[in-house]
């Protein structure tokens, strides 16, 4: 299959353009001034104010308290994304390990209970979750931001399926080799799950990074603002004759795009490498 088919490529190119055009527009538009954008709308040509816009966005202290910079918000988003991804992987791996390898009553029933929560989005339980966090005095803390969302049915489900596919003989060989439950998990299962962990990390990091509703409820102090809230904040200044800082909103959106892209690019390589090389 080395023959190049023009039609296939045409479709691929169109697909790429379709996906990339909005991103390109966002990048280009962010290099114009706010007034320019207000007058001329979106643009595909680069303007001359790129560097200063990004500098402003990253360092200018804004917000109600005048304390938040773009860098702070990016940091918050990063903490949220990483905390989410790592926490979810740890928790769901342990849960799946218990479900697959330990015989206890109602294990299957318990799995299905976990599994059905997949059907319930965060929004359904957002009030009780908020109340619990509030009563634990965890509002306006990173713990409160991350902890309630760590339990992951998706992650547990994927890891369960993965562990089930690991041949029993491997466990038996490890048992004869003198590995207890903890050793087996760390020495055998963890290294085998690398690819799965990479996959879940991609999904969960992006999910955490993009959280909007939950951080908005949980945190009222501006030092906990994430990039997602920052973008919204910039556009909320329709007072008098002031033009919103479109350019800054675009710049922030572009910045918000970078870490997930980086994560996907880095982990995808591991992911594919693992998929093609691993044989259990």
């Amino acid at each position, binding site marked *: 299959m080395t023959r190049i088919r023009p039609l296939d490529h045409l479709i691929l190119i169109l697909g790429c353009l379709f996906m990339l055009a909005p991103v390109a527009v966002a990048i280009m538009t962010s290099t114009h001034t706010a007034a320019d954008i207000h007058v001329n709308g979106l643009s595909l040509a680069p303007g001359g104010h790129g560097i200063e816009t990004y500098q402003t966005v990253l360092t200018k202290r804004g917000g109600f308290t005048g304390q938040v910079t773009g860098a702070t918000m990016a940091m918050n988003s990063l903490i949220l994304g990483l905390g989410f991804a790592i926490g979810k992987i740890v928790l769901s791996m342990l849960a799946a390990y218990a479900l697959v390898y330990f015989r206890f009553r109602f294990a299957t029933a318990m799995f299905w209970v976990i599994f059905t929560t997949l059907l319930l989005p965060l929004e359904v339980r957002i009030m009780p979750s908020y109340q619990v966090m509030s009563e634990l005095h965890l509002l306006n803390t990173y713990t409160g931001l991350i902890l309630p969302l760590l339990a992951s049915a998706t992650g547990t489900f994927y890891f369960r399926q993965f562990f089930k596919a690991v041949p029993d003989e491997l466990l038996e060989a490890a048992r*004869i080799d003198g590995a207890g439950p903890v050793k087996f998990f760390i020495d055998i299962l963890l290294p085998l799950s690398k690819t799965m962990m990479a996959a879940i990390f991609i999904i969960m990091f992006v999910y955490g990074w993009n959280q909007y509703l939950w951080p908005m409820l949980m945190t009222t102090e501006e030092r906990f603002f994430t990039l997602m809230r920052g973008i919204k904040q910039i556009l909320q200044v329709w007072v008098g004759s002031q033009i919103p800082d479109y350019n800054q909103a675009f710049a922030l959106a572009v910045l918000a795009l970078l870490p997930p892209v980086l994560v996907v690019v880095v982990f995808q390589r591991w992911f594919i490498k693992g998929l093609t090389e691993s044989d259990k």
Partner: protein
Amino acid sequence: MASITLTNVSKTYSGAAAPSVAEIDLTVADGEFIVLVGPSGCGKSTLLRMVAGLEEITGGEVRIADRLVNRVDPADRDIAMVFQNYALYPHMTVRENMAYGLKNRKTPKAEIAARVAEAARMLELSPYLDRKPRALSGGQRQRVAMGRAVVRQPAAFLFDEPLSNLDAKLRVSMRGEIRRLQRRLGTTSLYVTHDQLEAMTLADRLVVLNAGRIEQVGAPLEIYHHPASTFVASFIGAPAMNLLDGQSDAAGLYIGGHRVAHPERPLSGPVTIGLRAEDLVPAAEGLPFRTDFVEELGAQRLVHGHVDGQPLVVAMDPAASLAAELRLAIAPDRVHVFRTDTGRRIETAPASARTALVPA
């Protein structure tokens, strides 16, 4: 080095009405190579896994080196196991695979290195020590699995159909290697297989299992020449022993009206008569045999046909001439007699004659 003693061992899975393995009594002497053989589902793997500690023992006692191990963890039973699919840790190199069990037992590093190097040399794995299992061929993986058992220097080796994933040619050479290795190390071994040829060639003693029970225990040739039942007779030996419906009375044994033997101990009524294909020879007088077709094996030819409407296989010299109708004769002491109802062997000759027949 150790003996393994099984006393009245049985296994009933929860919810199952009948036991999967029942009433197993077996003593494996120190350094002995015992092969458990039987058709799939006969409980041979279950039995092995009970010795390994991977399967709970629901009745009886298992002793390794005179120590009761019924409730002992697999790791503490001082055994090593070789699995059918090798069960190598895919993310570890050959060296790490072999060293893992020793590392977990807090063996000093220098000793681990020495033992791994020794095992690798013995199994010709030295050039591959830093490779991962996926970069090895099937035979090499099998050798790594054996190396992992060898470095542990256990009281006993347990083999669970270790050769069934290999191609035929490799299987034969690995079979030789396993035998040579076991002789050299003198480690007590339990080996499970469904391949009767593998069983015959490897074993000091064979244990033939059927439906969870021991059918017969004995040296390969003893079992071959004196199968205790029609099951053993048809399972051990290729081609399988011919089993024909016959009659007996005070004067002798008959197949379709033709007398094939006159046992010293008179019998009466219907019996099952067992005839090995290679014991039958063409003769001027004897059983009338109608030829159907011929399988050429090179060294011999198997002639399929009928005697008295019952199928029969005869092994013949390829040089011998064939005819549509043959007469077959058999030495009377090569005729096996079984009860038709239970399939158990009926001894027709006194014990003295029997021992003379078995080349020790």
